[in-house]
């Protein structure tokens, strides 16, 4: 498949899968609360409606640029993430590039929300960046451990190593279970779900960064959420669950990652910001450091 076609198809596929993940999240939440939940077309209708709003409030140039930065950044990430049949730009950039690009949406949000000049938004962004410091440290330790274990940061090679030979014994989760567990915690915080949801906190700071986002801006953020769910779950699958031989196995694993996260979400209230940091720097970071030590022992042997 030509690279130009891949660059078109990869974001499209990611968006569609992300829509399905959003739907699954809402359906699971409804089931936990013993409701029926939204119909299957609901995420799409929400986005179409938001983009079809007749009036629109922009708070300035930075607000407009930042929202494009959010969407553009997350689409870039998708292009660097190999999926079955399409490797996109993943040969040109590695895991480090991917992690670097994954920061862009958060920074874009910070810039844009700054210009909306809403105090709730500023508080939300401050909390979001603090929480980021919480989950990025364990996540980076996990990624570093995985890179050490595989001996490469090339995502295609990581996939090849895990899919080599049999099915299970080369998977990251079997080879380095502690890192996989720690990364799952970090991924959960990365998705911004309870109990690490303090920067959204609708009842407290009115959805924080999203407080001034109306119409198309909110629609863009909804689209971003689809991409983010896809990116995070597929990245976890690539690093620890052996990726997918086909789209079917890939989606099965990616949906499982989101499903675990959603199930945990629904039974928790939210931690305060300092508790988020304390928890993230104690448990995932501790487990990840242990896992890193085990990986280093394995390599040294």
């Amino acid at each position, binding site marked *: 498949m030509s690279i130009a076609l891949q660059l078109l198809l990869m974001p499209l596929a990611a968006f569609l899968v992300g829509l399905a993940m959003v739907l699954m999240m809402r359906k699971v939440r*409804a089931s936990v609360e013993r409701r029926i*939940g*939204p119909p299957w077309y609901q995420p799409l*209708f929400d986005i179409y409606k938001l983009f079809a709003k007749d009036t629109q409030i922009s708070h300035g140039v930075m607000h407009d640029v930042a929202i494009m930065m959010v969407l553009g950044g997350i689409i870039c990430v998708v292009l660097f993430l190999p999926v079955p049949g399409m490797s996109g730009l993943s040969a040109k950039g590695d895991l480090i590039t991917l992690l670097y690009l994954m920061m862009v949406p958060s920074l874009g949000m910070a810039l844009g929300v700054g210009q909306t000049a809403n105090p709730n938004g500023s508080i939300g962004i401050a909390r979001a960046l603090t929480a980021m410091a919480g989950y990025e440290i364990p996540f980076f330790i996990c990624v570093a451990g995985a890179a050490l274990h595989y001996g490469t940061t090339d995502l295609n090679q990581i996939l090849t190593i895990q899919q080599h030979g049999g099915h299970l014994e080369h998977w990251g989760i079997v080879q380095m279970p502690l890192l996989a567990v720690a990364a799952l915690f970090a991924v959960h915080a990365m998705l911004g779900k309870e109990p690490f949801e303090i920067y959204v906190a609708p009842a407290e700071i009115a959805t924080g960064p999203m407080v001034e986002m109306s119409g198309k801006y909110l629609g863009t953020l909804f689209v971003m959420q689809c991409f983010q769910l896809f990116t995070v779950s597929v990245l976890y699958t690539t690093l620890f669950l052996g990726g997918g031989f086909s789209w079917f196995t890939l989606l099965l694993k990616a949906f499982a990652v989101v499903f675990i996260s959603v199930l945990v979400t629904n039974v928790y209230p939210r931690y305060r910001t300092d508790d988020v940091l304390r928890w993230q720097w104690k448990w995932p970071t501790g487990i990840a450091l242990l896992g890193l030590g085990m990986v280093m022992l394995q390599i040294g042997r």
Partner: protein
Amino acid sequence: MPDYPIYRDPPEQCRTPDAEERSLWGRTLERIADHCRARSLFVLHYCTGCGAIELPPSMTSRFDLERVGMQPMVTPRQADLLLITGYLSVKTLKRVILTYEQMQGPKYVMGFGSCTINGGMYWNSYATVKRLDQYLPVDMYIAGCMPRPEAIQQAFLQLMEKIDSGRAQNWKEYYRRYDHYLGEQQALFGEQFHTPTDVIGEARHYSLFGPETLGEHTAKLAKYDLYHPGQGAVDALEVKR
């Protein structure tokens, strides 16, 4: 005939549709958009009165409004539908007007219970508002004191049908008849009343100007001169009309 005026949906103004509206492509997109709007209402509650009690059973597992795509939202920027659940005091009406003006069109207002229709049991009170639709364009009223969740859902379904068929255009009346609404607001809050939202500017920007957008009441806004310093807001707008 009663001697008091009967308020109905104001008649649509005759105007020349622009090319985009006339094209098949534009009309198709708008038709789909109307359907999506009807099936994806983001709700903002203004819970001052007892009507708020009836919303939790509507939202949660007993009746589950998410089945028809309704979700609670927490800021006016994100919301489509403003629920006024019960009586409004003069003081809270100011906040409701501020909230309403921050919402993005198409936006809808629903009045809950007899308090919003005619003052209900607070009719004799000096501090409450008798009729909501004097101050804001209301799309749907629910009668009752208070309406049961079944009645609320019935009203939601009717509103959805109205939106789906493209008839829920009341929000445009706020721009087209801004002078009328501002006059009613000034009668209640005093001549000095104004909101930080530039409704006239928005009406001009989105081509929602009507014959009653400007008038004697909006003329009183000129002295605040917030958005067009030095040139006199309303005069400048009138030239561009």
